[in-house]
């Protein structure tokens, strides 16, 4: 019915344009919620979800109990849904949409031997075919799936394409079909359904602690540790919140993992809104790795092993990352390049060091972060590189007696000062041997270490050469101690 027709029949009709994106978001949220029944939740756009409950139904009291529970909870959230359980995704799709259902939307539960009979009366549209094929079949007088089952396959495939027989085989389980899950299946996960919803923060933390203990038991059995954890808490009204933490080293220590989760829960930008309470908590280890064997004391020695620096750093970094975000915890990575701003980069812990752009084309050789030497001063010269570096370099006005001479006076941050001493220049050229490396206006910088009247030690450079296309410009690149 067109909108104009409907409005003619019912003048008070309120019309809203269809918002497909909002529908998709809602379906996503429901899919998140449906995670409580099985980790394998797929979507069948525009309006369906496909849950693979193989091996998961008994956890909820069997297939019928699971279906009833799902229907009741969905209804309590204000939705109406039709459900069906079948041995194949294709049959489940057809039965949920076109099969018989009771008042609550509960469709049939089909056993493998009843598959053919239950599909036969359903319309052809249930086979997930494109509309043109469905229309063509209807014109030929083939209206129900049963009409196709009794006919020879070769003429059908010749006239309507191989897709028709393929879909038919998928529905009957002759061709295999897998549900593509929305999220990767975590290597290890544990869940905690709660009879009474919990509201208090301490209770959520306690639930997380219990889950950590069982998850770690699972991981220890496999000799693995978790590197990334996702805690999902489902509210009674179906809203699911996911909280993620990472660990630098594979970890199977329940106390440490719970500590990270507690830190993260305590520092959420928008805290968990309990509403009517949370009734389902799940903890998944989405990334795991083999645990490094630890040296433990012989019984009776009675002393804890000394905490080595590496373990201390990774524990501290994990805790800081849980509180402030992984990308905020940085380490200095030295790379083998002569360009000062690329010779040392601050990278998030655990990130791979990127190959410096100007120095070597990507992929030509691995970054030699470990091999890069330090430019430590020799006796008498003082440090050659500053302790603090400005990113980007700050422009400064410089006066010199002759164009190429050392700087005599500088004007920086609204202060004009004389230069007491200058040492240089140290010429640092761009990586001319790499095509496309010279992105800047010039190809050489002359660096000076200078001391101004107030005793500040600056690392300044002149970008460009006199007589070039553009006049050279001066910058402060760093401060010496």
């Amino acid at each position, binding site marked *: 019915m067109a909108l104009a027709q409907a409005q003619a029949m019912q003048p008070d009709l309120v019309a809203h344009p269809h918002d497909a994106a909002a529908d998709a978001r809602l379906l996503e949220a429901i899919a998140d919620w449906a995670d409580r029944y099985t980790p394998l939740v797929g979507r069948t756009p525009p309006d369906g979800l496909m849950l693979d409950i193989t091996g998961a139904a008994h956890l909820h009291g069997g297939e019928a109990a699971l279906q009833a529970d799902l229907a009741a909870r969905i209804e309590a959230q204000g939705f109406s849904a039709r459900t069906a359980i079948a041995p194949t995704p294709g049959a489940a799709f057809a039965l949920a949409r076109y099969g018989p259902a009771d008042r609550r939307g509960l469709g049939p539960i089909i056993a493998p031997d009843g598959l053919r009979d239950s599909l036969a009366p359903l319309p052809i549209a249930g086979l997930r075919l494109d509309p043109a094929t469905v229309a063509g079949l209807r014109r030929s007088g083939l209206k129900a799936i049963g009409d196709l089952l009794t006919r020879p396959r070769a003429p059908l495939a010749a006239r309507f394409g191989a897709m028709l027989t393929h879909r038919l085989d998928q529905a009957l389980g002759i061709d295999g079909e897998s549900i593509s899950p929305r999220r990767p299946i975590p290597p290890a996960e544990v869940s905690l359904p709660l009879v009474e919803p919990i509201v208090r923060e301490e209770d959520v933390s306690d639930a997380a602690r219990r889950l950590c203990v069982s998850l770690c038991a699972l991981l220890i059995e496999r000799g693995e540790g978790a590197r990334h954890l996702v805690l999902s808490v489902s509210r009674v009204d179906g809203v699911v919140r996911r909280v993620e933490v990472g660990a630098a080293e594979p970890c199977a220590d329940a106390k440490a993992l719970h500590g990270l989760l507690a830190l993260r829960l305590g520092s959420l930008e928008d805290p968990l809104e309990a509403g009517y309470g949370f009734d389902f908590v799940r903890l998944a280890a989405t990334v795991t790795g083999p645990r490094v064997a630890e040296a433990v004391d012989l019984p009776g020695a009675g002393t804890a092993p000394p905490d080595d620096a590496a373990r201390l750093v990774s524990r501290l970094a994990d805790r800081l990352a849980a509180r402030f975000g992984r990308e905020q915890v940085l380490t200095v990575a030295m790379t083998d390049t002569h360009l000062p701003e690329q010779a*040392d980069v601050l990278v998030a812990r655990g990130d791979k060091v990127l190959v410096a752009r100007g120095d070597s084309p990507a992929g030509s050789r691995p970054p030699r972060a470990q091999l890069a030497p330090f430019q430590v001063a020799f006796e008498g010269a003082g440090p050659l590189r500053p302790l603090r570096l400005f990113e980007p370099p700050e422009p400064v006005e410089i006066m010199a007696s002759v164009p190429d001479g050392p700087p005599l006076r500088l004007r920086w941050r609204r202060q004009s000062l004389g230069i007491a001493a200058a040492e240089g220049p140290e010429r640092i050229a761009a990586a001319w041997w790499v095509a496309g490396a010279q992105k800047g206006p010039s190809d050489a910088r002359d660096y000076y270490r200078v001391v101004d009247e107030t005793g500040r030690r600056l690392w300044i450079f002149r970008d460009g050469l006199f007589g070039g296309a553009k006049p050279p410009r001066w910058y402060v690149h760093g401060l010496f101690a």
Partner: protein
Amino acid sequence: MTTTPLLTAIGGEKARQRLHALHPAHPGQEAATAGFAIALALSLQRARDAPLLWVQDRQATAEAGRPYGHGLAALGFDPARLVVVAVKGAMNALAAAEMGLEEAGLAGVLVDLPPRLPSDMLRLGKRLSLRAQARETPCFLLHAGREPVEAPVATRWSVQSGRRQQAAGSRISQLPDLRTAFDLTLTKNRFGGLGRFSVAWRPVASIASPNEFNHAIPEFVFSDTTLSEPVAASAANRSAGTGAVLPWPAAAA
């Protein structure tokens, strides 16, 4: 720990479990301030590979620059030992510092504080101070604001790069002495007198080869300390019981 006059003046080993405030003497001396804090942390450390946490407020980093690995190595600090955490605002910076001080075994915690500090800095500082004491990890508050940090610190320093060498060779044609040195003013000291220090930060063994590339990072110590104490000790610094009020001029009696 090598005992030097500077460390003796601030209580030696006791300085390890304390909070220290460091202010640049002038704008642009933020690197000297951080360099001195690292030098102090290295002098007080117990293990040579102990990591150091540097908490950086974003605003402070924008104004003073980020730590640079080669510069750290030139001060005798292996950049691989550094963990940097970038945060926004003083509250987060102090929270990160507190998390660092909860771990035992760090060489120290450096905090680049933004110019604006929270009003209850005294309470937050007390927390840091107690944690530093419990874990025997020094904590250095670096602050470039106009007002000093209101916190229960053991020492308070005003820091700038050493200048005495420059005074001798002021002509540009001469090569300047750019070796690391600090001119320090100790304005609060819980363990002893106040005064001005001038110290150099030098490698223990001389680096023989004039090769600027070194894989090994040399060990540095404070050396050539000169100390000038103030003529009169400040009220807070006088020892109890010795203060007798004398009339002046004495002859008037």
